[in-house]
């Protein structure tokens, strides 16, 4: 089997703060194959965005990857010098953020931003870069691209701006696209279109996608595998059909309890009583133990690591072999 596009091994991200060291991402391991879509879910503050930022090398100091490794096509990238890592960003890994209204620089036209990015990574003349830019805008479904390319961001609607953002993230044909809640800020009516455009383009270009979202519907629709994060750790990771229809981790069960109903976020959260612990005050043992109705003695002492279980990995003592045997 070929090497995965992205492989994260035991990655931990820490922030030194006045009240001690805050671990935002804790010993996370996963990989994504070419053409695969990995969905990442979990409640607010679980460390989803931080995982994305760490992979692309953009954690705000004083935060840093304190241990673990990140590989792109088998090549280690978390230790690359700043200048080399910059060349990876945008070229090998594209990133799409949540809010298309604020992701584009208001003072430059779409053409200027596209051409600048393309020419940063590819040896093209200004004219060729512009041609490529128009092609990209066509691809992401912006009508009349050759005319609209010279407009400023504020002249586009939210959905159209997110298409521009996608074009920018894909303009140097990256191998991996990290999309951090790409549709959360958009009208429900355009969310599906944006996801379609992204999925279609990545499929055409063979790019892998790491899709961070709160929307289980989207995960069910386009993800191949899904990772569930809780308090900076992986709770469960595996094929979508398994994790969604037959959740193993008690936290995932709670999360999936709402699928495919149309509950609002507030109602969804009430599925699991209590809230995620503050990252500076993670309980001993399993971080989910205060909210878990299955918790038993061991859960309060030892912290479970994600271990293989039924085509996936689950971080829960309920599925530990020894436990099952005893």
């Amino acid at each position, binding site marked *: 089997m070929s090497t995965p596009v992205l492989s994260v091994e035991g990655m931990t991200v820490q922030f030194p703060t006045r009240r001690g060291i805050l671990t935002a991402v804790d010993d996370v391991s996963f990989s994504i194959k070419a053409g695969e879509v990995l969905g990442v879910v979990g409640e607010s503050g679980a460390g989803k965005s931080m995982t994305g930022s760490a992979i692309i090398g953009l954690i705000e100091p004083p935060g840093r990857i304190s241990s673990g490794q990140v590989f792109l096509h088998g090549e280690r990238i978390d230790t690359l010098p700043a200048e080399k890592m910059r060349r990876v960003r945008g*070229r090998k890994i594209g990133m799409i*953020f949540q809010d298309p209204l*604020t992701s584009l*620089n*208001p003072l430059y036209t779409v053409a200027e931003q596209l051409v600048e990015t393309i020419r*940063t990574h590819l040896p093209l003349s200004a004219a060729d870069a512009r041609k490529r830019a128009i092609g990209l805008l066509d691809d992401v479904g912006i009508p009349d691209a050759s005319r609209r390319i010279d407009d400023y961001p*504020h002249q586009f609607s939210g959905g159209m701006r997110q298409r521009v953002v996608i074009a920018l993230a894909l303009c140097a044909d990256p191998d991996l696209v990290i999309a951090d809640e790409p549709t959360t800020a958009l009208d429900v009516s355009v969310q599906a279109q944006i996801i379609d455009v992204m999925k279609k383009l990545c499929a055409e270009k063979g790019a892998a996608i790491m899709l961070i979202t709160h929307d289980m519907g989207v995960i069910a629709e386009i993800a191949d595998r899904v990772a569930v994060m809780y308090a900076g750790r992986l709770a469960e990771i595996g094929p979508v059909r398994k994790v969604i229809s037959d959740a193993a981790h008690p936290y995932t069960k709670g999360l999936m309890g709402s699928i495919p109903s149309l509950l609002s976020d507030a109602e969804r959260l009430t599925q699991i009583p209590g809230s995620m612990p503050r990252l500076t005050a993670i309980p001993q043992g399993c971080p989910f133990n205060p909210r878990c109705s299955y918790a038993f003695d061991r859960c309060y002492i030892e912290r479970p690591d994600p271990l293989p279980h039924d085509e996936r990995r689950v971080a829960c003592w309920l599925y530990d072999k020894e436990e099952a045997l005893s």
Partner: protein
Amino acid sequence: MLAFILKRLAQSVLVMLVVALISFTMFRYVGDPVASLVSQEASIADQEQLRERLGLNDPIVEQFFRFVGNALQGQFGISYRLQQPVSELILSRLPATIELAFASATIALTLGIILGVFTALKPQSPVSGGVMAFSLVGVSLPTFLIGIALIYIFAVELQWLPSFGRGDVVDLGWWNTGLLSESGLRSIILPAITLSLFQMTLIMRLVRAEMLEVLRADYIKFARARGLTDRAVNFGHALKNTLVPVITITGLQLGSVIAFAIITETVFQWPGVGSLFINSVAVVDVPVMAAYLMFIALVFVVINLIVDILYYLVDPRLRVGGARGGH
């Protein structure tokens, strides 16, 4: 664009009319214009005759419009003190003030932006800490103290630079400049630095705050995520966005540089309109004071207008009429 400029122009005219009214009121009612013009011994009849001749008995509205009409032609009467037309006096002093203001605005803008950007990009550097501490001194010490300190160090102790005056002035006919002679250039250094210090620290702190704000913006994060070079991100994307609000404020500051040149001009005996004004206040030379008021107002209004137009040119959100918001 044209409609925008016309609207701004109309507003400017309105502002100038209001200032003219204040200026006129001062001109007409502070002290007695007739008493200031005639000698002590003049008879009541003579005074009355002069009053009639000057039109001081006409209806007040008529007098105001005559005042505005004269002002439009650059006539503000005769200085009581110097017995010269006020407009001539101001025009002859204007080059000194304008050169000083531009020299100090250039210093303030250049250093202010450079230091502001530096302290924003390298907040942890000890140099930034030093600059920030120094900037506190700049905003809190009064101008005249800074001026006197500079004179003491560079003119009295080190004797590097002259302590007062404008040096040798070259007459270009329509303008007299101190920037073409060595003594003139040496003379402008201390007053320009003195006058610039306050604005410089202000601009620096403004640029720093704006830049820090902009650096946190999503489009900067996205620009980095696209792999643009630090240079492109910091100077192409962040600095340009920082400068939009900075333009407005520094532009308006230029107006206050000219207005507050009064103190610096006095400390350095700089022969500009500011010191003319101070000398006129001392002897209640009302025509000069009234004209100075109008002049400063005009400076502010014109600068405001220019700033608005610049702002309009820099920010496409204002320039491109009515967002299409298409799909």
